[in-house]
């Protein structure tokens, strides 16, 4: 089955990026789909273990990432967040303060690398075939032209 636009963008990011997570909104923009649709598909890719989910607490006041939660961690929604060094204004954590982002897993990276190698190999083979074909046609033309001139 051909990958959809979101999966194609994810594969491109897995091939190019340095491993930093990306947001569903970013993928949605690149894929030309809505954020909800992109998020649903990213979740499916995460379930397939192609992507890793990252849960972060984002300060509603400054946008800074304050805490990263791992899968299975309790996210303290409804509790007050107090920065240990008072660098952030305290706030009550809401669901909207939790950001979910995704990064490609090693599994996806390997697959993308393999695919890239295969694609490169196919391209090289195609190119070799094409150039040998061109050579053959040229030599045939040369032969035809010299025969004509000999007449």
């Amino acid at each position, binding site marked *: 089955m051909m990958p959809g636009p979101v999966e194609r963008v994810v594969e491109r990011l897995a091939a190019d990026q340095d491993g930093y997570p*990306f947001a*569903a909104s970013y993928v949605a923009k690149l894929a030309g789909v809505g954020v909800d649709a992109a998020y649903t598909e990213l979740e499916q890719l995460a379930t397939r273990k192609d992507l890793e989910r990252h849960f972060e607490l984002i300060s*509603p006041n*400054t*946008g*800074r990432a304050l805490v990263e939660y791992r899968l299975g961690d309790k996210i303290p929604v409804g509790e*007050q967040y107090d920065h240990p060094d008072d660098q952030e204004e305290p706030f009550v954590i809401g669901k909207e303060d939790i950001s979910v982002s995704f990064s490609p897993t090693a599994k996806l990276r390997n697959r993308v690398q393999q695919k890239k190698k295969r694609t490169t190999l196919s391209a090289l083979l195609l190119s070799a075939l094409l150039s040998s074909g061109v050579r053959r046609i040229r030599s045939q033309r040369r032969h035809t032209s010299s025969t004509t001139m000999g007449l």
Partner: protein
Amino acid sequence: MLPSTVDAAITTYACVTHPQDPRPALPPVRMSRRFPMLARIHADYELTRTIQATGIGYSRAMLLSKAPVQLLNLSVGQLSRIASQQGLSPDGAATKIDLTRLLVEGLEPAALRAAADDYLYAGKTSVTWVRFDEGAPVALSALKSALTTMCGADPFASEMRPELDGTPRLLHALSWHNGKVVLTFAVRGQVRLVFQGYELREVSEDFSFQVIVRLADGVLEIRSGHLYAQRLQAFMAELGAALGRTPTRLPIEQAQFDALHAALNASLRDYTGLDGSPSPYQTRSVSKKQTCPDLAVEPAFQQDYGSLEPVSGDLIFAGPEGEEMAILVAIRTSSVYFRSAASEATIDLVYSALKEVWP
């Protein structure tokens, strides 16, 4: 329970603490003699320490008569301007407390209220809006009845002194002008350790703030930071139930931001957005050059920052009296912070612009 090192320090300095009242005794008697207003504050403070010790409860922010406290909300420039307009001669080097003292001692309470009225509940403040249902008007009598039921006493008639904790408590209600009702709340803030006079003491930062009810629009305007706006949710729900209405927090999203920018003829000065791309940056912030009139209309800004998820933007605009005003529009908290000490008219101006585009 105090950490052991702090506990040891307290033992070393042989500090006598007051278990019922964590606030320290005030030492500056000499200063109080020099400044009569501070002497009054001192006396009030000590009086309520005694009240607290008897378990009646107190609200430190309400110890002073309301005017001086609210005057401290104004900038030095505005206090100085009010003093000059009232024929008082402020010293060029006067501090905020000097100017407050000058106004309180130089003017009758009624004259002071009239002079500073437009700033008393405004100033440098964060504002968040909550609307009941679709904004149908709330009758003053209905509000009074709902609040009386909730508080067990008429907050318009008396100042209440509920025991303070982390949830804002209503202290007083005032029917103001232009169809506005002022609700004054107090909340117990963080308990901090202070080192004063060779003693470590625990001091709670109690805090008082206002909620303005715009009766005609069924809107409550919370003039406080994000945390206390969040902590008022239970009160809003209870008030809504008492009025038979549903409170909804009004959003400030890109549409409201754009409308505010256009309606105020404002200039975008600073911008912060979340970077969702696979980059090492969580947020990216940018500020404009002095020669750039408005970031928002710059193609380069749109190209470089247009894809970010907005966190906040600083808008500069001319206030009702032509003065330059700066507001921080915080999109993730749906609030507006007035960086310049705003007058009531300025807050009205911003509210009117937002009202046009709220769903």
